[in-house]
């Protein structure tokens, strides 16, 4: 590929840049993408077929591709629902294999607990996913490479990131539908915090907090343009999430190629105004977070809306009925 620029190219680029700068205040429009909402009443064997049909419905071309599945694995507490349910992760794993993916890996780097395999075992991943250890990469301790963040919105200019995710063809964020005491809601975009390697930045990945939580969520989102998002809202978490909240059955799975659109849809399902979630506002701008910003496939938001309880500090994000 010839990558030389002529003087004319440079001048044309500068003129285009100046023109863009002049109209810098015009809201950016994002293409309307499909977001599927599927009812799933529980973690039963039916979920495998439901998940397969949901993913297949998006027409992803994954044949021969390297797919990384990133669940939300944080801590284990038998009394609540912190993590993406192992059956959902397994169903997604089997679905991508059935769709012809060349390699499917499950990968996660928890932010608090250092024994990732012990945590995965406690959370039921070993007993649900056969040969789990062979299919899994601990992103906290994977080999890393430094990546510059182009046009960062946070205070970071670069991040060390694991090769497993840098080298994949499609990153699939499989988040849990939860409220979050710092971000309002944690869904597929916030789930990307688990990509940042603990062996470099520590447990917790506090560098991200100092650089701005909403801003680093957006920077991480931009670093991985090839994504697919799935949110496990069969039983989510309300109240003081993402760890100390209480289980909230919402009976729903949400997915799509555009993580911001998926997360905005999840917010509406949870009774949260997506325009009041700062990382969504930064990533999209308020004008792209309306109900029509995504094309709903399957159930309507109204049919599945289940208001999640919000702690006092976050009452103001409640979506009007």
């Amino acid at each position, binding site marked *: 590929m010839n990558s030389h620029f002529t003087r004319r190219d440079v001048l044309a680029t500068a003129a285009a840049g100046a023109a863009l700068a002049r109209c810098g205040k015009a809201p950016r429009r994002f293409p309307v993408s499909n977001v599927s909402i599927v009812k799933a009443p529980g973690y039963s064997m039916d979920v495998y077929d439901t998940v397969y049909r949901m993913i297949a419905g998006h027409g992803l071309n994954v044949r021969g591709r390297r797919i990384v599945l990133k669940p939300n694995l944080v801590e284990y507490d038998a009394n609540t629902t912190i993590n993406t349910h192992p059956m959902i992760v397994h169903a997604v794993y089997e679905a991508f294999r059935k769709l012809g993916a060349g390699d499917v890996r499950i990968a996660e780097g928890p932010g608090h607990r250092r024994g990732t395999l012990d945590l995965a075992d406690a959370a039921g991943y070993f007993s649900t996913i056969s040969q789990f250890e062979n299919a899994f990469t601990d992103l906290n301790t*994977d080999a*890393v490479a430094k990546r510059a963040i182009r046009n960062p919105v946070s205070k970071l200019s670069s991040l060390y990131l694991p090769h497993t995710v840098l080298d994949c063809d499609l990153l699939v964020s499989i988040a849990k539908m939860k409220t979050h005491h710092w971000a309002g809601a944690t869904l597929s975009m916030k789930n990307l915090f688990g990509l940042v390697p603990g062996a470099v930045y520590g447990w*917790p990945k*506090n*560098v991200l907090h100092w650089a701005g939580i909403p801003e680093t969520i957006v920077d991480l989102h931009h670093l991985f343009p090839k994504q697919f998002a799935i949110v496990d809202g069969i039983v989510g978490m309300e109240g003081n999430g993402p760890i100390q909240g209480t289980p909230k059955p919402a009976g729903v799975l949400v997915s799509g190629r555009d993580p911001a659109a998926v997360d905005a849809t999840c917010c509406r399902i949870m009774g949260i105004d997506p325009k009041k979630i700062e990382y969504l506002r930064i990533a999209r701008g308020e004008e792209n977070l309306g109900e029509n910003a995504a094309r709903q496939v399957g159930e309507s938001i109204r049919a599945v809306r289940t208001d999640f309880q919000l702690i006092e500090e976050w009452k103001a994000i409640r979506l009007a009925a």
Partner: protein
Amino acid sequence: MTDWAARQNSDGGWAYSRGCSWAEPTAFVLLAQSAGSPDRASFLNGGKFFASLARQDGGWSPQPGVGESTWVTALAALLPEDLISEQQRRRAIGWLKDKSGRDSSWLYRLRRRLDGDKEELPEGWPWFPGASAWVIPTSLGILAFERALRRGASDRGELEDRIVQGKRFLLARQCADGGWNYGSIHVLGRDGDSYPETTGIALLALNGVPQSAPLQRAKAAARRHFSECRTSEGIAWLRMGMAAQAETLTPAADPVCRTNMDAALMTLAAASRNPLLA
């Protein structure tokens, strides 16, 4: 007995579990080897790998691909004498002396004062420069400085002051249940729960602290965690932490060792000459 040479990468280091070598598992395997009769060639190759991670600023990088010095610098100061030169060790201690949590910077303290928060924030160590101090890097920093003092470091006053500060930091971050988690005792006013591994490492770093009600609560939390814990990491750190408090914990059964770190920690916890214990 673990065959460390069989698990060793060709560059001389060890992976956490599998894959590339990192400073931390390499340091803990070397410590575990030094607690017994090491395979000398494996031991020295491991030392060479670890030494290759030393950086110009005196600190240590966690992995060859990372161009920054981080918390693993404390591990350099804990390694046996025959692996790290005296000059490298002094520079590592110097690097650690310059680092503390961002939340103990004068700017942050001033901002808190202006917000009406007068609580004292003792100095601990961060995982990564520019971030807050947390329980594990602070515990390792204390152990590294105590080791430097035992080796006769010349800057005693400075090191002793940071050790005192570090221990005060740990006591300030004790969870309501008596143990420690990564270092967040409250989240929006709610109590955080402690973990076995962080409770163990904090108790190890709090060696020599006079008996007190907080220490009694910590030991009770450690015993409670030990009776329920099934992970190698948790059991090993709890055993080491309580050994530093002159109490022996014996596991009912050997837990599964899934990683090199697990195996190294379990070896250290069972060793009669554990180099992490004074």
